[in-house]
């Protein structure tokens, strides 16, 4: 399955589905109405992604199972790409299972574990946010996420 939009392309391995759309959070939409630009948000999951969900997966992570994984790739303004927060170069392709914890979640839920990292690629600034279904299974689930990350390509900012 191939998805492509907003300069982001994703070849999804079996079991994964996703979407590439613009931000939906109310604050971002409000800023856009005042002249700001809505940035793309990529959501990937190993479970049926519900229609109504936040940019960082609220609404989606609530329905994911223990064996599932959720990935959010949220883009920020390109001017941020050179900032210290986004200094790391390139989309992380290899994950350290030990880095996942419940403390990294936007909202702690059950035995879920999360991780987030900021990086720049192609002159663009991104946050990669990952939620795994079970803290006890992070090694297996992290490998599953690495498979989907391997298929993501980011075009250079034009």
């Amino acid at each position, binding site marked *: 399955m191939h*998805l492509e939009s907003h300069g982001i392309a994703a070849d999804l391995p079996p079991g994964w*589905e996703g979407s590439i759309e613009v931000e939906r959070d109310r604050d971002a939409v409000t800023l856009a109405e005042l002249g700001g630009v809505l940035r793309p948000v990529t959501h990937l999951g190993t479970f049926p992604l519900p*229609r*109504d969900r936040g940019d960082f997966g609220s609404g989606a992570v609530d329905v994911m199972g223990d064996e599932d994984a959720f990935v959010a790739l949220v883009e920020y303004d390109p001017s941020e790409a050179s900032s210290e927060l986004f200094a790391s170069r390139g989309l992380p392709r290899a994950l350290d299972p030990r880095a996942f914890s419940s403390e990294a979640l936007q909202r702690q839920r059950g035995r879920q574990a999360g991780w987030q990292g900021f990086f720049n690629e192609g002159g663009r600034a991104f946050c990669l946010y990952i939620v795994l279904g079970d803290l006890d299974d992070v090694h297996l689930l992290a490998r599953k996420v690495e498979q989907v990350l391997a298929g993501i390509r980011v075009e250079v900012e034009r």
Partner: protein
Amino acid sequence: MTITVIALSVVVLLLSVLVVGLLRSHATILRRLHELGVGLERDPGTAASASVPRTDGSVPSPPRDVADGRPAHDIVGVDPAGAAIGLRTVDVDHDTLLVFLSSGCTSCEDFWSELAGHGTVDGVRVVVVTRDLAEESPSAIRELAPDGVTVVASTAAWKDLEVPGSPYAVLVDGRSGRLAGEGTGASFTQVKELFLRSSHDHGGKAGADQRRERELDRVLLDAGLGPGDPSLYRPPTEPR
């Protein structure tokens, strides 16, 4: 005289033993024939092999990877706002009810309004599929899109699943990746009843019943219990 009586008694005894032996042999033959189904009353037209289970475990299991129904396809398209969307319907644990609608079809009007809040029904994911936005009225689709339900514009899905028109519904069995049902109805409520709830029309089983049956079959096969397995015919109270 005494010798004659003794001789006759021996002959009678031998004949008795012979008769008892013959009766036992006959009983054994009758029991074996009964096990094979000979002499049972059957409905007209019922095949002999189908009426009596074989209990010796020699019946081969059906192939696990062959399912009924046409093959389904994953759905790739865009949502009414133009976002790229890819939905998995094949090789997944959940079933998906794809409802094919158009913005201009009058028969679809009730579907659009009824679908609100029905993103999942009885554990089955519900997705509305329209033709590509270039072939539809994007503004109308945006207005009609029901809350809480994923809407995908994908003419490719219509072609892949050979959808004859709208409204039309297709139920995809996620595990087998095959179509478990398809058809149309006057309303989404009717389609729900047809595919997802009890329906005795046409003598068929409801989708939920079929799913439960398939799940039980899968569990039994995974446990190594195929059709005709002797343990399936053991009285429940008998210790294993």
